[in-house]
């Protein structure tokens, strides 16, 4: 029941918030709920058996019997850390929005909880239609978060986000329906939407011919996920959405929603279409490499800090795609680790940008300069997060990018050579930005604030420290002791790499006592 609790508890919270009469205590209540949700996920993690490669805590009930659709959820090493990331970021986002969201507070928190439920559902679903329901359900709250609480061009950004993502996913729906039609071959006559039955399908593959079943299905799924990741050249919705979204929206977008795309490559694309994904791996690796370099180059010339970070996301997600498609254990475990890193470091960057924006209402790099003197603690936090983002050793970013580069070197040294340039470029644009914003002569904003006592720049408040400390701790924790996190996923990744051709997952309903 623990997984269902995780998925549906946020919905219950949202309902309670809807009925809550007191406007002034909504924030406190929501924060409490999100912490409770995090506690539940910790309980789940405590019982999680990292020595087991298959799905754990499995629950399965028939839902729409006529089509073999069931409520089927389970968790394995690939999803466990992403679930933790989702529940971990939630209280941080609520705390971060304490000041910046000052109208329609109730609606905002309801949207956040519905979004959390949908995201957890898409990580945990093992039934294709159930997965699709959660996948699409996550669009609506995000649409409102960007559209209602966003910046100046919020409507353009949010409609673009919605239509881009939906355009990708309807083809996936068609592919799911098509595969459901094939399942009677392996289930002995019954139609089924279970992912495990999909794994058993042997879909014919003809190398080089596009209009064959496996290739078409592969691209239908891959396109849906590529838009979500987003992979170059389908990334254009992301900078718009990021820039216009309110801070918590950017955090959840970068932190979790983009990972839904990359996670689904591991859960769906690689095991379902092994031949096609091996045959077309070059395409995705090439797009990943282009994304890394393109994202970095575009980030370099951005005048807006938030846009810079948004394009750096495109660049970072390129690494993850490469790590996945080189299909060896270094690459995949690096990719999975990088998903967490990106969630934390980019999430923290958006939080920091949100904090300064609340004070100055400007994100233009050229207006800043000399911020380090005015806000020393803020500067320290920002520099640490920057180090993590550009993969300096001892921070989490290093582990992930190093593993991915190692994996891609094993696959083809040239890929590693080219993509390593992204690390250099990444260091360049981030450090330039840090230099211009924090050091050097005092810029327009800082000098203005020094004179004008009413608009003086205050350093981090206690609430902001509470927001940042968990992120900073994780940056070092994950950088120094990667095994604390990787051990959870090791078995599952090894299982995926070894059995990609005939993938199957064992099921385990509950952890037996004394098993660990």
């Amino acid at each position, binding site marked *: 029941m623990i997984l269902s609790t995780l998925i549906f508890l946020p919905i219950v919270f949202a309902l309670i918030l809807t009925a809550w009469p007191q406007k002034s205590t909504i924030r406190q209540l929501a924060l409490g709920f999100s912490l409770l949700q995090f506690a539940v996920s910790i309980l789940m993690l405590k019982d999680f058996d990292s020595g087991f490669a298959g799905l754990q805590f499995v629950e399965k009930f028939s839902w729409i019997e006529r*089509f073999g659709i069931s409520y089927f959820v389970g968790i394995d090493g690939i999803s466990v850390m992403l679930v933790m990331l989702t529940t971990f970021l939630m209280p941080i986002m609520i705390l971060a929005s304490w000041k910046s969201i000052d109208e329609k507070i109730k609606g905002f928190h309801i949207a956040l909880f519905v979004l959390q439920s949908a995201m957890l559902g898409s990580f945990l679903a093992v039934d294709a239609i159930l997965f699709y329901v959660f996948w699409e359900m996550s669009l609506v709250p995000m649409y409102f978060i960007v559209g209602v609480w966003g910046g100046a061009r919020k409507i353009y950004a949010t409609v673009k986000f919605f239509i881009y993502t939906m355009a990708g996913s309807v083809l996936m729906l068609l592919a799911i329906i098509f595969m459901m039609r094939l399942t009677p071959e392996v289930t002995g006559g019954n139609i089924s939407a279970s992912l495990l039955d999909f794994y058993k399908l042997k879909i014919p593959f003809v190398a080089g011919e596009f209009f064959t079943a496996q290739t078409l299905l592969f691209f239908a799924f891959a396109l849906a996920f590529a838009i979500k990741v987003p992979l170059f050249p389908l990334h254009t919705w992301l900078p718009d959405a990021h820039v216009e979204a309110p801070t918590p929206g950017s955090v959840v977008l970068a932190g979790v929603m983009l990972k839904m795309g990359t996670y689904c490559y591991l859960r769906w694309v690689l095991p379902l279409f092994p031949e096609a994904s091996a045959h077309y791996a070059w395409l995705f690796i090439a797009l990943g490499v282009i994304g890394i370099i393109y994202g970095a180059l575009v980030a370099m010339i951005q005048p807006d800090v938030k846009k810079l970070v948004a394009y750096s996301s495109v660049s970072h997600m390129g690494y993850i795609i490469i790590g996945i498609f080189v299909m060896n254990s270094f690459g995949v475990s690096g990719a999975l680790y990088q998903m967490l890193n990106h969630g934390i470091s980019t999430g923290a960057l958006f939080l920091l940008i949100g904090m300064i924006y609340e004070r100055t209402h400007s994100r233009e790099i050229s207006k800043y300069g000399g911020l380090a003197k005015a806000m020393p603690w803020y500067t320290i936090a920002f520099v640490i997060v920057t180090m993590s983002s550009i993969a300096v050793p001892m921070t989490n970013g290093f582990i992930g990018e190093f593993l991915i580069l190692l994996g891609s070197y094993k696959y083809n040294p040239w890929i590693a050579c080219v993509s390593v340039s992204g690390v250099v470029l990444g260091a360049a644009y981030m450090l330039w930005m840090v230099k211009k914003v924090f050091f050097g002569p005092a810029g327009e904003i800082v000098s203005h604030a020094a004179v004008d006592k009413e608009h003086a720049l205050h350093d981090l408040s206690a609430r902001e420290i509470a927001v940042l400390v968990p992120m900073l701790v994780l940056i070092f924790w994950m950088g120094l002791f990667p095994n604390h996190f990787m051990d959870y996923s090791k078995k599952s990744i090894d299982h995926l790499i070894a059995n990609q051709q005939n993938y199957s997952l064992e099921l385990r309903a509950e952890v037996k006592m004394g098993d660990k």
Partner: protein
Amino acid sequence: MNNSIGLSDILLISPLIVLFLFSLIPLTGKVLNNNKEQNPASSLIVALIGLCVAGGLLVVFGGSDQTAFNGQLLFDGLTQWAGLIALLAAAGGLIMMYENTSTQGKQFSELIFLTMNSILGMLILVSAVNLITLFIGLELMSLSLYLMIAMSNEQKISKEAAIKYFVLGSFASAIFLYGVSFVFGSANTVNIVDLMANAATLVKTNKIFLFGMSFITIGFCFKVSIAPFHAWTPDVYQGAPTPITSYMATAVKTVSFAAFLRVMATQTLNGSQNLFDVLQWLAVITMTVGNVAAIMQTNFKRTLAYSSISHSGYLLVGLITAGISQNSSYSAASVLFYLLTYSVMTMGAFAVLSMMEKSENHFLTNEDFSGFAKNQPLLAFCLTVFLLSLAGLPPLLGFFGKLYLFSAAVNEGLMWLALWGVINSVISVFYYLRPIVMMYMKDGNADIAEHPQQATTVLVVVAAIFILIAGLFSGPLFTLFEKSLG
């Protein structure tokens, strides 16, 4: 042939009798009181009781696969469910009429009389197995509608719409009847059950029969607004009072599709590749025309009219699937299920629109929704639910409707139609999102009309709850449909 009318016939058609009797009550009351309009609330209650009793009788006697009057009217699962959906839509329409500015007032009892007689026509239409009886049902329904549209308090556009609908509708009826005459000439029967036996071979060998079937199909295509026979739809939907538009878009469409389904069940499509090809293209064109044209509208009612055209396109996909399928109860159930979901969400959207009309000459554009969420959070939320469901977003009911419809199409190998269907649902998102953007993301002071509208509010909320919840329990509902059609 036994020409006497037995008790079983009377029991079977008891819903029709009840409808007719109840339709007379408000009107008689008015005539007996010096032509003075009676209390509209009591008229409404009488009408709703009539609809409920008719629905109850339909449930009890309807789905038994029995025929009345020597096989003229067939009461099977299709009759029962399509009839129930239509009765539901009529009840919703009546509630809206009671509170809408264009239909309130001195002619309410006449409106009730016409509504209940049009639904009587609809029940004949869905139960008819004889093409002539079917035609009678079609005309009874249509004639009542022409009048209902013209009776609006609005003085110009509604009259134009009524004339337009009347002229074009009569033309389509004529084509339909012309087709029936060809069918009778070539097959010597106008009974659909008899046609089932040899339609597939006749349509191959006999050009006259093919001609007749094509004309009948065109007649139906007009009624359900399949492009290129859709041109009347936007104008009539816009001109008619909103409650009646809602009634047309839901009840009329449901029963027309149900009758269309019955004609399709003759396996004509399996015999004629040409007709099959043409219908597939019509489906694709209808979906695309409806959605692309809807994007270009600024008037919200017109947007909904084009959206209903595009939904006809989706439904035609299901209809084609049912037409070529050997196991048609599955495909037919998906069409019926879609009709139910479509009717509820369209009715809901029109109901919110109806509440927002402040005067009979008030036509809402998208801008008129600005700030609606601030003033009417509950109604704005409900409208959002309806629009997202129309766009097919899970976990709302509209998604499951599309899922079943397109799975049936994929099952019959009509992958490309399903592909067009899903591509079109993405296009449709664009215009369904527009009012939501306006309601939640723009400032303004949109509000509902000031006179009390509790009944419509209840209708909207109930429909929204149904859309939210029923998706999760759609499996048993679908199985129920499939069983009763089997």
